[in-house]
């Protein structure tokens, strides 16, 4: 599904990401962990063609992501608030995203109906612009918008951060359900080792831009990761 070859990204001569080879299979749930500055967001931005690599390619279903934009139609993503059009209401934003993906307003309604619990009554019908929402609620809007197109690949950067505990649990269930029912390929980064080991079958540890662990999740994984990150 996603294949990385000889990927390297540097800022001002400092290498911030270096992945010689990586393959993510269809339906795999791929967790990315690492401390600040490890290169998680950089990697995701590269996958989404938001920044240019200095070297190497990323292939999505065999196509180089920087050559065409075809992958956008089956990829859902949310990196940060920079994705949200802040002067729209959440409803308007969902309509807009649906519209550029050629979905009807009826589709949007049907889609949003499933998100009643996840939104916990704080998003829809509030007559607020996105810029007036709290950080957690913005995050909910972004995550929901990334799912609107029923994507085959889902890229979420720190989806659990700034969510309240109930929503964190709901999100975990939602992601597991997407895996089981729709076989969605997921790329998720997190600082929270608990969440990521619970949701992801495979965990990659990044350190200063290098992949230093590539683990298949088992009952020992959490402990393994904790001992790695312990100072």
């Amino acid at each position: 599904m996603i294949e990385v070859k000889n990927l390297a990204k540097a800022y001002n001569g400092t290498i911030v990401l270096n992945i010689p080879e990586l393959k993510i299979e269809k339906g795999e749930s791929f967790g990315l962990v690492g401390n600040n500055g490890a290169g998680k967001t950089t990697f995701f931005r590269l996958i989404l063609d938001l920044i240019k690599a200095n070297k190497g390619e990323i292939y999505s279903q065999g196509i180089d992501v920087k050559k065409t934009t075809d992958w956008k139609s089956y990829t859902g993503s949310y990196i940060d608030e920079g994705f949200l059009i802040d002067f729209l209401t959440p409803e308007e934003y969902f309509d807009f995203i649906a519209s550029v993906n050629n979905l009807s307003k009826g589709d949007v309604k049907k889609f949003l109906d499933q998100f009643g619990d996840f939104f916990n009554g704080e998003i829809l019908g509030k007559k607020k612009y996105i810029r007036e929402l709290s950080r957690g609620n913005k995050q909910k809007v972004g995550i929901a918008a990334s799912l609107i197109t029923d994507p085959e690949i889902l890229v979420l950067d720190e989806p659990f951060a700034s969510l309240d505990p109930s929503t964190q649990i709901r999100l975990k269930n939602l992601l597991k359900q997407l895996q089981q029912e729709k076989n969605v390929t997921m790329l998720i980064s997190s600082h929270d080792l608990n969440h990521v080991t619970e949701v992801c079958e495979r965990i990659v540890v990044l350190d200063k831009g290098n992949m230093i662990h590539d683990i298949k999740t088992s009952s020992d994984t959490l402990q393994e990761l904790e001992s790695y990150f312990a100072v």
Partner: protein
Amino acid sequence: MFKWLLSHQWKEMTRSNFWQKSLVINFIIGFLLLIMFSYLVLLGLFIDEILIDIYPDGDPFIIFNSGLLYYLGIDLFVRFFLYSLPVINIESYLHLPVKKSKIINFILLKSSLNIFNVLPLLVFIPFIFKVIVVDYSGSIAFSWIIVMLILILNNSFLLHYLKRRFIDKPAIIGIFALIIVVTMVLDKFDIIALSDLSSQIFVFLSNNPFYIIIPFLILILVYGINYSYLKSRMTIEDINVKKQKKIDSLSRIKYFDSFGDLGEMILLEIKLIWRNKRSRSIINMSPLFLLYGLLFYPNEDMQGLGFLIFVGIFMTGGIMFNYGQYMLSWESNYFDGIIANNIDFQKHFRAKYIMIISTVIISYILTIPYVYFGTKVLIINTATFLFNLGFLSFLLMYFSSSSRKRMDMSKSSVFNYQGLGASNWIMILPFFLLPILIWVPFNLLGIPHWGIGAIGFIGIVSLAFHKSLMKIVVKRFEEKKHLIAEGFREL
């Protein structure tokens, strides 16, 4: 604490990427300022002779004073549009043990250190030394300049208050301008005598320095009003209250639905402009562009074709320039979303193009009445209209991909009016000059009217090739999008 505030402000200013990135523009701005300064000094040196020329049997000092009240009124009006309020992000200081009064005093102090307070002095000071000191006495000159300083500061603080208060209601300032104009007309026909009053006041104050206490008390009063207004608006709650405006009903406009996703994108542009204070200010300024012709057309000395072309470009394209040059910067808040989502850039730019041509067409229609000043005006405006519509619009979109600087549109709270100033205009000067450059060779050949035709012709030709031009625009955008996004991510 004051020292800290000052140093933070200094750092904010010197570290803003505006300075480092565009040295050439800084240079041009500096150069233009220098020219403007020297004109003002020259005006100050020769104003007595100009006044004697107009009123041969008057005393220059008295005539000068008679215009001062009007000057103060007009100054206030001009400042309202050109002066950017000082920005200091108070949220970062409010939670610290800093006295509010310190922050407020700092903001006000900062507002008094601005160019509009210096410019009049460039005229006044030569005038003092050449006229008042010579014709009257040093002590009168001294009291006079003190009065002037107080009044300049007074205007500065008054404006600071009015601008914060009425930034969303430029109509009030329009009414104010109307009152000034009406008074001037009435004064001209000797129905009222504000100018006589003005000279009496200022001559009296210069001769009786003790009474300077009155303008001084007014100054303190205005400062106090500012102070209490700011003080009442210094809590985070107030800022938030301001933010939680009711949402508008733009979404209920069903008209755009029939255009599918293109319609949705046009609607997005409209919302972008309407819902952000920053972009909304261009709507408020639009009437000014359209009235520009009134400055030139009635004036016999400014009937040169070159002038008229400039005026035509400015009037039919003024709104377009303001929108076009920030087209992408205004999206900086969500630019990552634009490029990561499944958005067809061709359509994205077409939506922007439709916005641009709408403003150009509307501006053109509204300027048709200027035909009153002669068919020449209409013909030139038609040519420049076509040039804006077909050619400059694409040029602007092409160069919009050069934007790298983030603009925060959402910070529309009380303390943020950044970038509503005049310096942006320098950037687009070359665009205004282009049609004149096209016209000049024809003029030199003695066929200036052909030059006008050529301007319109270029417009029509590029309009015919709009599809190819659009492809060039989008291609450049796709090449530059990573760089743009990188620039926009830098806070």
